[in-house]
């Protein structure tokens, strides 16, 4: 009896070993999964109102929710939910024709009513990424045609609203009174290429499943997963993820290991906020002297070790299509800076400028804010202090919590503050947003709130409302020139970002032109996961190759030795049973 029991246990063990050996082979062959590493992990629930209002939060949400139009690697706007559109200057309306086969993840069709509803809903419940003051109303003129009436000319409409506003399903959201509290399953029903599967705030993980009935075709992968990794680059090297950001100094090493390294465009700006309400910073000559005293190249060489480039003083990225060709420049010239400061009544005494016996002293606030909002200490404060002290300005460098620095800047309780923001590669509306406080919008610590130049105000007004492309471009160029002369804030440098992905995963990631939506400089555009155009052929081909390779790899898994072990165990079990039967 005991031997029968032993024999049975051995047989069960054999069966379990057999299953364990076969399962990975089966799953590897059947599923295509992409895993992305992220250091922070939690960016909020992937629903429009619940995702954190930072770039990574929007990116987590954009896989589930589609907008009317979109951008890819080279151009924008391109059709997404809207197949085509038209702008009528006479009526000041946009007409959008939607994809007729688009469906929500619960199977309901996407109609023009949903678009009209979204606009009405977001006007009533403001959504952080899009301000709809420029839109009057939306009218449904067919099951898949919607007409959007503007309240006045608004030049950034296509990128700012058309390409950023996620469309909500009316049949779910019509009963939602407070969107910030809506965390039911319906909050994650969109019409994007991926369905929501899981989100863990504690673990900082996201899981999405491909939406089979997506109107642009099923995504080329089955599952997309975000995992929280203390060191994303290590996770990539160990094969735990397929895509991660890499440290600039490590980019070449990672490239040498067979990963594809993508170098980002310079759409993020490290800048120096200025309190232009305080003496002597209220003087335009003093601000220009600061520029001559600042050596941008030294920031790039020392703080970034060459992985970046000096910024344009006109705010818009020098790599943007909107960049002005003749922005005033301030080449490093400490002597000229000293000369300019001395014209303001300051006297040079023992290496420091003084006025009325008081030394020229400024406080510089620094915080832990780093590239892309990630908290990293940097050397910028030390370098700035060194450079400004060389021209006789005594610097009191103060390191505070990011939120405290933001609050002090918003309350004008500062002299200079080192800060940073993105969006300088997208629509030039950023110039307006970073100079003027948009009425009704929350005060941003990166907005200079500068209204001392009538000329700049008029140009910014043209930039926002000029619908003629050529005239608008001229206004954008001139705005940058005046900005660089007035200097509401001083741009320091653009860091270079590097991401790396494994080519085996079959996805070719890219940086979106002007950044995702309103200018998010993260190379995780959902278009890379959708098979469309010539690129999709290559991707599909690459994916097939990968699948075949995976299959081969699965075949190569050590099943043969496993089977040998099972055979031995089974034989042993049979012998045991026979011996047990022999006994009376």
């Amino acid at each position, binding site marked *: 009896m005991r031997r029968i029991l032993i024999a049975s246990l051995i047989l069960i063990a054999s069966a379990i070993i057999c299953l364990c050996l076969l399962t990975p082979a089966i799953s590897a062959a059947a599923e295509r999964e992409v895993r992305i590493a992220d250091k922070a992990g939690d960016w909020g629930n992937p629903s429009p109102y619940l995702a954190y209002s930072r770039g990574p939060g929007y990116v987590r949400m954009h896989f589930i929710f589609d907008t009317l139009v979109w951008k890819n690697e080279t151009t924008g706007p391109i059709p997404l939910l809207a197949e085509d559109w038209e702008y009528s200057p006479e009526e000041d309306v946009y007409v959008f024709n939607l994809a007729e086969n688009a469906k929500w993840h619960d199977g309901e069709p996407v109609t023009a009513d949903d678009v009209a509803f979204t606009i009405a809903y977001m006007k009533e419940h403001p959504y952080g990424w899009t301000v709809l003051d420029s839109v009057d109303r939306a009218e449904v003129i067919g099951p898949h045609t919607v007409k959007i009436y503007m309240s006045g000319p608004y030049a950034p409409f296509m990128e700012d609203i058309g390409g950023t506003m996620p469309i909500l399903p009316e049949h779910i959201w019509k009963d939602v009174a407070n969107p910030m509290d809506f965390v039911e399953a319906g909050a994650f029903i969109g019409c994007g290429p991926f369905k929501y599967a899981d989100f863990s705030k504690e673990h900082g993980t996201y899981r999405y499943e491909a939406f089979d009935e997506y109107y642009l075709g099923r995504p080329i992968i089955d599952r997309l997963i975000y995992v929280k990794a203390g060191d994303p680059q290590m996770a990539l090297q160990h094969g735990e993820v397929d895509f991660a950001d890499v*440290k600039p100094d*490590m980019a070449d090493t990672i490239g040498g290991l067979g990963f594809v390294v993508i170098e980002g465009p310079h759409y993020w700006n490290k800048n120096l906020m200025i309190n232009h309400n305080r003496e002597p910073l209220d003087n335009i000559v003093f601000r220009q002297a600061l520029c001559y005293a600042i050596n941008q190249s030294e920031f790039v060489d*020392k*703080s970034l070790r060459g992985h970046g480039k000096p910024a344009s003083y006109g705010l818009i990225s020098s790599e943007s299509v909107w960049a002005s060709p003749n922005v005033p420049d301030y080449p490093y010239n400490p002597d000229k800076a000293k000369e300019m400061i001395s014209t303001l009544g300051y006297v040079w005494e023992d290496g420091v400028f003084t006025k009325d016996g008081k030394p020229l002293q400024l406080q510089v606030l620094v915080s832990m804010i780093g590239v892309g909002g990630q908290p990293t200490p940097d050397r910028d*404060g*030390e370098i700035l*202090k060194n450079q400004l002290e060389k021209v006789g300005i005594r610097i009191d*460098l103060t390191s*505070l919590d990011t939120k405290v620095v933001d609050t002090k800047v918003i309350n004008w309780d500062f002299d200079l503050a080192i800060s940073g923001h993105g969006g300088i590669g997208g629509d030039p509306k950023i110039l307006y947003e970073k100079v003027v406080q948009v009425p009704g919008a929350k005060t941003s610590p990166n907005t200079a709130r500068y209204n001392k130049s009538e000329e700049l105000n008029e140009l910014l007004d043209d930039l926002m409302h000029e619908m003629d492309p050529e005239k608008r471009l001229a206004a954008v160029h001139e705005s940058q020139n005046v900005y660089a002369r007035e200097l509401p804030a001083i741009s320091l440098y653009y860091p270079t970002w590097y991401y790396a992905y494994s080519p085996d995963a079959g996805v070719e990631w890219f940086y979106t032109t002007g950044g995702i939506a309103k200018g998010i400089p993260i190379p995780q555009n959902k278009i890379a996961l959708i098979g469309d155009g010539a690129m999709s052929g290559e991707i599909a081909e690459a994916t097939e190759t990968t699948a075949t390779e995976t299959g081969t790899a699965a075949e190569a898994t050590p099943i043969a030795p496993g089977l040998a072990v099972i055979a031995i165990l089974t034989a042993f079990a049979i012998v045991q049973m026979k011996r047990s039967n022999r006994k009376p």
Partner: protein
Amino acid sequence: MHIKPFQEFAKDKIGVAGLVLILFLFTTAILAPVIAPHDPWDYSASAFQPPSREHLLGTNDIGYDIFSELLWALRTSILFGIAVATITCTIGIVLGVSAALIGGMYDMIVMRLADALLAIPTIMVLILIAAYFKPSTTVLIIALSLVLWQTIARGMRAQTLSLKTKLYVKAAKNTGAPTSYIMYKHIMPELFPLYAMGFVTKARIAVFMEAGLSFLGIFDPTTKSLGIMMSYAMRYLDPCFGVWFNWLLPPVVALSLLIISLGLISYAIEEIFDPRLRRNNVTPI
């Protein structure tokens, strides 16, 4: 006092080891401006240079000479430790002894305040102060001293209460000696072991706190500090940089040695003044 503390200390190997170590570190820190081969704020050298004759521990990410930075960082830590320990002990002694001698409502208020401070996690208070106010070194020294005095005050009060009942104190009182005389002549000298131990213990805590706060990045960024050095070095731990042994290890070792030396001294002092802890203790019959 029936113990000859200096002779006893000289016999204690652990204490002597700690003292030698702390004297070495102390001398190095004092002589930092002379010994340091480079200006620790000069970043003109190229980044990530390996150790060489020119740069004994190489250079860091921005081009600072790591050896010079280490010497100046040690100076900050020691200065911070001594300053905090001095202020803390002064507050603790004054409040503890006066509470015991004056008694009544004053005693109750001081002791309840000490109890309340004991319940507050020090590091949290410091992080809050550092995050919301300008965290200059002086501000942090004062802030830390204001939250660390309570254990010293309690010890001082207990010992003073015990001394008050001694016959010679009563005798002095009966002969008409004023309280200040009794305090100065009879009480304060008897409290010496508590000062010494309190000073060393608080210095150790302060050194550790300073390194911790600067590691978290809420300290004056231009000050040279062991914590700031570690914080930056931790960002370049990847083997490709190969800087952990010449950049991360030196501040870690320096901080460890500093804390260990203070710990050894504290241990030796405690052993000298507390007969129960002596290893060669022979209980008299």
